[in-house]
């Protein structure tokens, strides 16, 4: 069970207060109407789903209700960092 540091509440809380909301840094296309079906389908469904370093969106649902980003190793479950919406990760997968 994860122990997650909420960057807004500035302390660790138990996983039960949070839930994951999928891959981070997936901006909505600015002009959806000009997207092809393939482009839109890719935005909707296709994901990196990496084994290893992953950037994902979490929300402190039972706490401050704020969304934030997390860099996490999906193999070891190690949380490398959390950072606020709009910020960039400092740890990225080498590939």
């Amino acid at each position, binding site marked *: 069970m994860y122990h997650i540091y909420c960057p807004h*509440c500035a302390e660790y809380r138990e996983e*039960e207060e949070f839930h994951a909301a999928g891959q981070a840094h997936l901006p909505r296309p600015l002009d959806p109407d000009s997207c092809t079906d393939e482009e839109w389908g890719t935005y909707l469904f296709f994901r990196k789903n990496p084994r290893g370093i992953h950037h994902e969106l979490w929300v402190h649902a*039972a706490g401050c209700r704020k969304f934030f980003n997390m860099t996490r190793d999906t193999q070891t479950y190690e949380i490398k960092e959390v950072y606020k919406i709009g910020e960039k990760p400092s740890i990225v997968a080498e590939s």
Partner: protein
Amino acid sequence: MSDNTTAQETVTPIKAAVMDQLPSAAIQGQSPLHHADLDSLAQQGPKTGGVHLREHKLLCHLTLRCNQGDEAQKAAVERVLGLALPLSPLTSVEKGDYSIRWLSPDEWLILAPGLEAFDIETKFRTEMPGHYSLVNSSGGSTVLELSGENAIDVLKRSVSVDLHASVFPIGKVVSTTFAKSTAILRRKGDHTFELIIRRSFADYIWLWLQDTSREFGLVIDA
């Protein structure tokens, strides 16, 4: 009222609808735990036990959303409430019957005497500049006070946050899961905690508190 609504059709529409939601004192409100009849439990129930429970009902609950970086807004809050907005996470301020709890970087919960909601809201609407929201949630929640030497034992069975005095000092406030519901939890004393719970979950939490405190003995305080 009718003038108010006809006014709505005129050129300068009001930004937000402020409403005095309270009837005359002749009409008695019913708190979320009305059906539990805590008052008679307080009279007939046990007088000693490790856990004491008291409901502070029918208070004024206001949820304020604004920009903690906006000096003008912070000043306005102080003018209205005589209290400075607590800016550091998980803190609260209290003066007399007025208190403010930090809920998130742009959200605070204000508690005040039950009859003052409309006055405070009106003051805010005249004093507060810029982008903000103020929502009356008085009917949606109630305040429970848990005290006694075993209060913390009941809480350790209900919430997963660390309640040790070294990390949960008096005045600290957290929004967290409470059993399978949620609550806003604040420490008021070494052995005294305050729970703010949602109306629709009140009966569940009441059952839960009875169950978890059974082994310590539950005393209802009037």
